[in-house]
């Protein structure tokens, strides 16, 4: 085969923050293909450059994931990137897998989202295995191969080491439209990138249907993850375990039909895009405090045209001043020797009495964390937007002062990194705690449905189809929020949560006519789309995009607000993250001749053409001397 297109490759993309670009810049035409050379040690790089048989000075480096995704490997990659001469000669890096798992690896920082939280000067390293490579910038593509292509690529390397007559070459088609920009603002103004965001989901179980209760309890979690390669954001313990727990709690409590026992409203929140400076929780709380619909839709009073919101239910159903209890579920059930439940809170921020109430409701078997600060979590958004001391809050996690998760935001944080039984156990504990808080009833002993837990784990962490998504297909689990879209169907995780919670929060008489839908916009007013059908439910989507962004309807593009506007609303810095548009992503390998071969063939062709012309001219002359050649062309004698 002339060209072999490498299938199922996964690559890192180019992203922007407020001040810088990070990730992988795309290829440029002059440096998009390189001779394949293996490197599994930093010292091999100089040997590669000194190979005199290599015709072109561009290389495609291939390294094992073992080496590259290690401290040594990351350090080598950074040294290549910082050496301009060397980086200019790298067309790209291929990473092959040899099936082994590192002991630990995390591409995330040691304190994720630190500058966007309550403790920008903190010295805690929540994620001690963090390498921060997520936020490095590489001037070349880095592509991860599947197992089949890994062995093919390795076999081709050997001929290059032996300086055979052909060079095995890899070409990258990896065009990042925002390549030439340095930050999000520049990129957005040129229209070559889009803000990162997703769709959060919130559900409310009201104490009394038509009224807002005096107090509200929130059970919250994060739903997105990231990874060095965005498509590898498996998010096992971080944070699909918390999604499963939160859904299991909702499922257990929803069975309590005697909601007259509820004295408080109960809301479940599933925040998306939290990886990117707590965008989901910030947007939600910003809207709760600040939102005003300038132009309502004339077709559906529940929709706001400007600024665009697909549902205004949060305006009608939530009064932020009544939020009195917030319980956030963090990483739960990470595989390890010991399973403990830790509670985290910051005494200086919380309503101490209400916080004690939460801990009491959790019962025995929980350990107070030794950390004086709340871990990186949506709780930090709650504390920055809501008045200090106005609510009790606790974060429940399986770690104390550092993550138990050895693969935080790595592809190895998958279904094998969680203990499903532990997740079910914690779900039962939390169900009782939340139920106690909303009803005051301490006699009920709720249990989570472990079968339901297993189904949800399968939906979010297995590549098989999920019964909660109509017409679902087998897809590799990926929980990277991606670029923002108002269309919630683009976010599979959010869709699963919406369909589960939607079926648990049906109210009143359901519509007699079954109306099919793909989004809420297909449904009549005051109905939502759950599982492909329009129903009356109290589950809604909410945009999970940093409040720093706004959409300019006149110029039809995203812009960044003046950040000084936020000073009066929150102590938290709003994040700015965007992803470059990409034109095409693909990799192919082929054999290539040394340059002199093709030149020789062309020279030979030219000589042959000239020679044949000369021979024909000579033959014609001879023939015309023997017989008058020209007279043969005469029509008339």
């Amino acid at each position: 085969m002339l060209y072999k297109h490498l299938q199922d490759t996964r690559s890192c993309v180019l992203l922007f923050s407020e001040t810088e670009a990070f990730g992988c810049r795309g290829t440029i035409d002059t440096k998009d293909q390189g001779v394949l050379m293996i490197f599994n040690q930093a010292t091999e790089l100089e040997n590669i450059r000194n190979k005199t048989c290599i015709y072109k000075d561009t290389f495609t480096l291939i390294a094992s994931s073992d080496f590259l995704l290690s401290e040594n490997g990351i350090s080598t990659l950074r040294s290549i990137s910082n050496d301009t001469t060397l980086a200019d000669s790298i067309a790209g890096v291929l990473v092959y897998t040899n099936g082994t798992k590192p002991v630990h690896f995390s591409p995330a920082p040691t304190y994720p989202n630190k500058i966007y939280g309550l403790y920008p000067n903190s010295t805690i390293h929540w994620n001690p295995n963090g390498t921060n490579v997520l936020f490095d910038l590489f001037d070349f593509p880095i592509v991860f191969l599947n197992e089949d292509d890994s062995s093919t690529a390795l076999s081709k390397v050997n001929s290059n080491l032996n300086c055979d007559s052909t060079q095995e070459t890899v070409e990258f088609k990896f065009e990042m439209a925002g390549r030439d920009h340095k930050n999000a603002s520049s990129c957005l103004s040129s229209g070559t990138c889009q803000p990162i965001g997703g769709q959060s989901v919130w559900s409310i179980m009201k104490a009394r249907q038509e009224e807002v209760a005096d107090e509200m309890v929130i059970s919250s979690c994060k739903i997105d993850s990231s990874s060095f390669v965005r498509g590898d954001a498996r998010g096992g313990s971080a944070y699909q375990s918390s999604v499963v727990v939160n859904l299991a709690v909702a499922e257990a409590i929803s069975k309590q039909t005697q909601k007259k026992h509820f004295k408080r409203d109960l809301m479940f929140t599933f925040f998306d895009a939290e990886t990117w400076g707590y965008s989901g929780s910030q947007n939600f709380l910003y809207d709760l405090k600040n939102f005003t619909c300038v132009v309502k839709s004339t077709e559906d009073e529940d929709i706001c045209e400007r600024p665009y919101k697909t549902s205004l239910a949060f305006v009608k159903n939530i009064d932020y001043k009544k939020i009195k209890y917030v319980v956030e579920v963090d990483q739960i059930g990470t595989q390890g020797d010991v399973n403990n439940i830790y509670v985290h809170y910051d005494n200086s921020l919380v309503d101490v009495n209400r916080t004690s109430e939460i801990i009491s409701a959790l019962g025995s078997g929980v350990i107070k964390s030794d950390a004086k600060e709340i871990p990186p979590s949506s709780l930090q958004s709650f504390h920055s937007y809501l008045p200090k001391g106005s609510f009790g809050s606790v974060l429940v996690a399986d770690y104390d002062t550092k993550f138990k998760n050895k693969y935080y935001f790595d592809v190895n944080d998958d279904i094998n990194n969680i203990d499903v039984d532990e997740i079910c156990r914690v779900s039962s504990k939390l169900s009782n705690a939340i139920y106690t808080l909303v009803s005051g009833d301490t006699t009920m002993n709720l249990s989570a449905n472990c079968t339901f837990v297993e189904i949800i784990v399968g939906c979010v962490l297995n590549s098989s189809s999920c019964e909660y998504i109509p017409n679902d297909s087998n897809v590799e689990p990926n929980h990277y929020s991606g670029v923002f879209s108002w269309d919630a169907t683009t976010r599979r995780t959010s869709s699963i949560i919406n369909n589960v919670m939607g079926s648990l929060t049906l109210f009143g008489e359901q519509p007699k006519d079954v109306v099919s839908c793909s989004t809420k916009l297909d449904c009549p007013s005051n109905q939502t789309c759950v599982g492909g059908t329009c129903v009356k439910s109290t589950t809604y989507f909410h945009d999970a995009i940093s409040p720093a962004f706004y959409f300019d309807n006149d110029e039809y593009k995203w812009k960044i607000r003046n950040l000084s506007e936020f000073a009066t609303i929150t102590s938290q810095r709003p994040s700015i993250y965007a992803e470059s548009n990409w034109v095409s992503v693909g990799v192919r390998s082929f054999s290539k001749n040394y340059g002199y071969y093709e030149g020789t063939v062309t020279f030979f062709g030219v000589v042959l053409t000239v020679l044949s012309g000369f021979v024909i001219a000579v033959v014609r002359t001879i023939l015309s001397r023997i017989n008058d050649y020209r007279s043969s062309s005469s029509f008339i004698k």
Partner: protein
Amino acid sequence: YLALIGNALIVFGPIVSIFNFYLCNIPQLVIVFVAAAFFYLLSTCLTSAFYFIPGIVNLPYLLVSIGVSIQEIFRFALFLAYLFTERGYERNLKVKLLYGKFAWLHASVAAGLGFATCHALLLNGNVLSQSYGPGTLYLPNCPTITYFTHHSIMTLLFVLLNISWMIIGFQGYIKKSVLRIISLLVLHFAASLITVLNNKKDSCLYVLPTLASLVVIGAIISTVELIIICNKDE
């Protein structure tokens, strides 16, 4: 694109030279050239119908023999068409189609070039298009040169063979010479059947030299024909 240019020049350079310096000033020969190309195309279409016979692709020698036979039939048909046209031209317009003692030689060269050009386009057109791009391909049958160069050289040899075969053929049909016709068939079958060995390892070490030898033999026979024509009175 250097590979594409180089390989295209190997195949089509001589064709263009012959056409440009030999044929293009003589409209009759251009018409013969085009007609011959069309006849070759028809022969190929008919040959391709045999590929639908189940299992025949596993009998390459049989398939090649069928192809060669059909081509020879169409060569003869081309000769008859030219003869018919020449005689009709003379009878109705009272002038000759071509003048001079080399009229039949010119016609056979034009026809041979027509066969060769269509053969080259069909055989090499798709391969040449694949040679555009950075990638190359080496096959076990010829590991020292690329597949594209090997294919171009083979096509060039067949271009030269087609011209010499047409010269031999036309002379054989005009003179009703069994010896010439048999020589033509032997040369054509030999050249075509040897290509079946192309799928063997290092086969280009004997296939290409064999074809080159046949080109030389064809050139010698064509030269002898030329000498015979020279010595003949008009």
